[in-house]
């Protein structure tokens, strides 16, 4: 089997991020008042959890680096991954939520536009998908609002 020097960068990045998160938790835990009726109080659990996270993150990070030579070669996927489309599924929903959060659009309008836009982007503006989503989008936007508020008595962002 040929040598493989692949370094698992994601493991190392995640380990470092987790150490950062645990440090933030330790700092925030300092503000929690001391226990007043039980031996450990509210700060103990977050503190010891943060210590454990730091310990495990160090072990994972160091081990990933040391064992990088032993990693099996990357298996071929048989399809081309689409990181840009994956980014759209984070960015477009975030804009959709932001629109309603800032009260720029009601649920009906925002949902109709969101479904049409994201379906179009994910299909790379395939005509058939655009036509079908132009029908589906208002059904979910306007019909969905009616069904959820009038039948299921749920609150929706206005």
């Amino acid at each position, binding site marked *: 089997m040929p040598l493989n020097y692949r370094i698992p960068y994601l493991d190392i990045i995640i380990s470092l991020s987790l150490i950062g998160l645990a440090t933030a938790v330790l700092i925030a835990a300092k503000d929690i008042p001391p226990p007043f009726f039980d031996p450990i109080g509210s700060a103990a659990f977050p503190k010891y959890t943060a210590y454990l996270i730091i310990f495990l993150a160090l072990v994972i990070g160091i081990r990933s680096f040391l064992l990088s030579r032993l990693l099996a070669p990357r298996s071929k996927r048989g*399809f081309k991954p689409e990181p840009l489309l*994956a980014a759209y599924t984070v960015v477009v929903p975030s804009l959709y939520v932001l629109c309603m959060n800032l009260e720029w659009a009601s649920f009906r309008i925002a949902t109709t536009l969101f479904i049409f836009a994201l379906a179009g982007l*994910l299909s790379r503006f395939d005509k058939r998908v655009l036509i079908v989503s132009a029908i589906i989008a208002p059904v979910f936007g306007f019909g969905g609002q009616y069904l959820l508020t009038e039948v299921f008595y749920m609150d929706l962002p206005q």
Partner: protein
Amino acid sequence: MEALEALQHVLSPYPFLWIFIGVAGGIFVGAIPGLGGGMLMALTVPLTFSMDSTNAVLLLMGMHVGSVSGGLISATLLKMPGTPSAMMTTFDGYPMAQQGKPGKALSLGVGASLFGGLISGIFLIALAPPLSHFAHKFGPWEYFTMVLMALVLIASISQGSLLKGLMSAILGLLAAMPGLNESDGQLRLTFGFESMGDGFNLLPVLLGIFVMSQIIKDALEINKKVVGIKMGKGEGIFPKFNEWKQHLFNIIRSSCIGTWVGILPGIGASISSMVAYGIAKTFSKTPRRFGTGHDEGIVAAESANNANAGGALIPLITIGIPGAPVDAILLGAMIMHQVQPGPLLFQTNGDLVWSLMIGYILANIIMFLVMVFCARHIAKIVNINRAYLIPIIFVFCLIGAYASTNRMFDVWVVIGFGLVGLFLDRARFPLGPFVIGYVLAGIMEAELRSGLQISEGSFLPMITRPIAATFTIAALVFLAYSIFQEWRARRNLKPPESTLE
């Protein structure tokens, strides 16, 4: 007597209809690769807020049963397990379908699923009441050590490395900590944000981890194309009596394995089917035929993964510990409906718990009928274009997260945890321990603090109280065994020194 009343209840029109809708929806979603029972259940929970709690639980349980079985369709015809639990079915189901016998492969799987479900249903009814009675003896230390054992167990058995499993479980614990601590009313880890005062609610976290991360992954893999095997006209799925008779021992053995693995806290159906498949192969007269379209492989995998669903309900009902990540959603839904699973459930909500157990058996029978009559049609539509599905699923996420508290903050939590889930998944951190850790964090901390109050700050009861000591020792043994196994696996992986130079 209670069982008969429950039977009468689940056979009445509304509960029966909800179980039917749950099972049918579960089969459909379970058959679509990339979606799953967990996603469907998490999206459905908010729709149940206005429902009667028993009907809501029956609907969600039906979805669970349906989705485990629905995975069989895509595993057999597309070589893509609709749900992770159907992974082992692809090894023999797809080759058999390729050999021109897709109907036989599905019929074996459907029959085995039915028996697996029924056998675990019998275990559920037989074991849950006495175990619940036994759990009355549990005090804070017993609960704390049991949760500890569950976390170690799920972290060590989850796919991937033990360290990553443990880290995932601990991150789940951490995610449950911000906000108001119920033990003493202290606010903590809010980082100065007012919205963090209520912490991260259960439903948005589940939607983020189970659903949002999956739809981002689906978009990333949108080019993944599958070529399905079509079933011939007139090819039946109804299992033949001779086949059932021939595989009876395998079915019973695999169902018992599935139920037992399900009872162990925190372990999912995929492990059940792996263990049952491995044992079936070991004891088979024709082990070399496994993986080439062998009847025994399909039967073992399918009876075990369906039996797991029933087994996993046992710890959920009796001690309030989810038997699998999907059961964490059922647990969350019960809590949202003011039903607290645990030893007192038989006393406080006896009608609900008996309906759940009898309903589970009925759900398996409905699953069998739906699969026999509709699997052929479901198989035609499982390859839905993701461009339609992804936006619609997100709209349901938004509705689910917002409806529980009317806060847009919770919708942002869905997106945030979706990204967390995606990165963890890409780095091969199992997500099951995260969810279980999140769900059990509250119990773990509250019980530890109560225990320490009673013992005046001493941890000794962990080893001096017999039941707690058993759980502590079990946790240590699982941990030590997992470390040993991982060390052995790594040693075997090392290439010869000469190749390293």
